[in-house]
């Protein structure tokens, strides 16, 4: 971290650490040989199962051993267990993955094992309540994903898993609740593509399902995104969301209003590349979709403005100079 001094350790301390690491390495290599030997021999005993636990704690990415572990569960442990025992075993498996996820939040194998667990919950607890166990465990999953996203709001594994849980849980939650969740995540740190993306998915479903008035809701969204824009005009995720809100640009009034708003921001912050780029994009939308509502003079001045902005962009963002030149050529050709 910036400004933090490195801590100095004595030579003896570093030597001692190195010795410890060598010992650990030796132990791991022998574990590795051991577990693969057992697997190749088709060993599905309890000892083999415990061995997979040790190996996975040392190396959670070892997907071969995850598969081996599941083989033992399916072929040896589950067939010899009552539904209640299977249920407990699934609970234990989930606990193991939870503790591993805390240290390794982005390992595919661990998330994958969780999905497998969820898919293998037995019917129960009783004949009259066949879904009870499933409901409890799936509900808890959402809580676990929330903890993971609290720790790292941009972990796409967690967001994907969240969507998987929301879509498949026996007792579905209202989409409104998910909207509130994305609001919370965005307020905590709006530099988060995943949160905005989730929000766009939820809103789409709410609009199509008739649960939210799209018009009013969009106005609130424009207000939210404008606050983000003014707070940090350099954050790309905000502009991407804005672009999604504007959509095809069919609403003339909205387009004009947003252009004016971005222009105000550009006046306050003249070096903002995203303002300039967005203005070009939206003005071109105007020219493309609303040519009939514009006078000849308006169309001409819009074109001039686009060209002027693109020239400015070449200075501010020289890495993409060629792109802006191409865009300018495009503008000139069409208009």
């Amino acid at each position, binding site marked *: 971290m910036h400004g933090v001094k490195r801590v100095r350790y004595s030579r003896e301390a570093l030597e001692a650490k190195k010795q410890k690491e060598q010992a650990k390495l030796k132990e791991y290599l022998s574990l590795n040989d051991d577990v693969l030997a057992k697997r190749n021999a088709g060993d599905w005993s309890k000892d083999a199962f415990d061995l997979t636990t040790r190996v996975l704690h040392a190396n959670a990415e070892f997907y071969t051993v995850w598969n081996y572990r599941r083989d033992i569960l399916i072929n040896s442990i589950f067939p010899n267990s009552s539904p209640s025992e299977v249920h407990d075993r699934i609970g234990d498996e989930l606990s193991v993955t939870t503790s591993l996820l805390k240290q390794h939040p982005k390992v595919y194998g661990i998330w994958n094992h969780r999905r497998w667990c969820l898919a293998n919950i037995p019917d129960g607890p009783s004949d009259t309540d066949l879904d009870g166990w499933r409901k409890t465990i799936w509900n808890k999953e959402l809580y676990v994903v929330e903890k993971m996203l609290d720790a790292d709001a941009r972990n796409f594994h967690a967001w994907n898993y969240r969507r998987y849980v929301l879509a498949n849980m026996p007792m579905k939650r209202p989409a*409104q*609740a998910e909207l*509130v969740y994305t609001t919370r995540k965005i307020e905590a740190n709006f530099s988060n593509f995943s949160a905005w993306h989730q929000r766009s998915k939820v809103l789409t479903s709410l609009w199509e399902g008739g649960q939210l008035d799209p018009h009013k809701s969009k106005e609130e969204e424009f207000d939210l995104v404008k606050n983000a824009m003014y707070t940090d005009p350099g954050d790309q995720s905000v502009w991407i969301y804005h672009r999604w809100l504007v959509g095809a640009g069919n609403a003339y009034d909205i387009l004009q209003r947003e252009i004016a708003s971005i222009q105000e921001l550009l006046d306050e912050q003249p070096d903002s590349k995203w303002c300039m780029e967005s203005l070009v994009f939206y003005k071109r939308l105007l020219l493309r979709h609303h040519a009939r509502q514009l006078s000849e003079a308006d169309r001409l001045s819009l074109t001039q403005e686009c060209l002027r902005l693109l020239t400015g962009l070449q200075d501010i963002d020289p890495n993409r100079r060629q792109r802006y030149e191409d865009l300018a050529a495009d503008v000139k050709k069409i208009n």
Partner: protein
Amino acid sequence: MDVDAVVLGSGLTESIAAAALSKAGYKVAHLDVNPYYGGDNASLTADELVSWADERAAAGPSNPSYASAQRTKFTSISRSGSTLPQSRQYSISLSPAIIPSVGPLIDALIASGVSRYGGFKLLEKVAIYTGPGSVKPVPGSKEDVFKSKELSLLDKRRLMRFLMFAAGDFEGKKEFEGKEHTPFVQFLHQVFSLDGQTAAAIAYALAFCVSAAEPTLPALQRIRKYLRSTGRYGPSPFLVGHYGGLGEIAQGFCRTAAVSGAAYILAHNVFSIEIPSQSEEGRKYKIILEGLDESLTCDLLIASSGYPLPEFPRAVTNDSTDNESSNIHPIARAIVVVDRPLSFSSPEVPPASTASDAEGADTEEEEQTPQKQELDTALLVFPPSSLEGGSSVAVASVLVTGEGSISAPKGKWVLYLSLPLLEQTTRSAEALLRPYVDATLSLTVPDSASPTSTQPLFTLFYIEHPDLPPSSSAASESQIPSILAPLRSSTLLPEQADSATTNAETLFWKAVSALKAAGRRPKRRTGEGEEEGEEEVEVEGFWPPLDIVDDPEEDW
């Protein structure tokens, strides 16, 4: 007892220096006339605080002594007659402070290993007082700015632009050119179009200026330090130490000094310091303590200018090399204990329809943040002229610490008020601070059982005067013992701890070269058992390398 250096007084600076010298391999004896560690930075129980106050308020002889020096340093003392039950569960600090997460003290805590001895609480909230019953949160991060319902869009942009500027290398920027001495508030207005409450929040609750006249450069330097401290341990840049903060930290450094071989003698006064006529191990000084037969011999004496010694009036000068002298004023202080929490609730309405629809349907969603969020560890800043009856020139601050900082029992909070006295005044500490106390108490959360206004359980008022600047003379040939004194620490709430640390480091190096001139080098133990001996080593750094690598990996 024969040592290399004797350190007098166990305030934070002296304790850090004692620890560094001891760990470097010097033999150190560390003395304090008080029966507790920490000196003027100490953490005291409630009963100890009452004794402390009464001793200094009582009249006494004016012959030079520690007691009379303390009576000069702490004046205008008044307190409520009440006693606090559960006295030992309080750790009340004589020098309340907040510690930036990136800075010299944190570095020293880690490098010395003292970080293992103590715990810290992150400051929860900072707010400024804007009127009766009205308090505004201080936005210190992008999230705060984004969420704020108070700032206009343009204000948000301007504030963010300023924060980005302040967090970067502003020294070369054209906005800054020629403006180092401009008053900071004016700078904010001229260059960033920031006014009113936003500018006040930046100047007084982010940069911690004590008045509107403070110049831009030091204010910007402070803001940058604090901005770079956010995120290291949490959203706030500041930590508050457990058990009363600096006193406990000083004690931690003393402990590590003792582990490295330093000898500790508390509760004994220095009777005399002599130049030994015949060489006792070739040492320069011999110290005799009251009530102890054994004397101490050493080559170096270290004591702050506030620690007077009998028969040796300390030389003082108007030394302009004393750092940050502009930030050293008398301070009016109050310590108030209450049994109701404070709340900085902003008049925000809970979010509209979308949330409340979802709430009912969704039982697992976290609770909405309560309208009145009770605070455990927080800071309230009163800008100049914000309070009727308060100062129109200086900024007052109130540090709230509750159970979470392990300095008060459950259900009790200790409030530390401080007001720098920038102008001469004859008013008492109580008269100066009463309006602030009342305004702060009006922010407590009323108890539904007894909705009357909050009465404090205990109050103490006093004025703390700065120590005189130390002299820079090193009279090695004269008969008067030459005492090495650290520079005085800044009295600013977020600066005191780091200032004490950098002063301790300067003191350490001066001590090393003074001891070298006296022919003394630090020694380290070598060999084991029969071959044990000592070898002389060189001092490589402020702290020696750590002997254990902290390994967070678990075993599998």
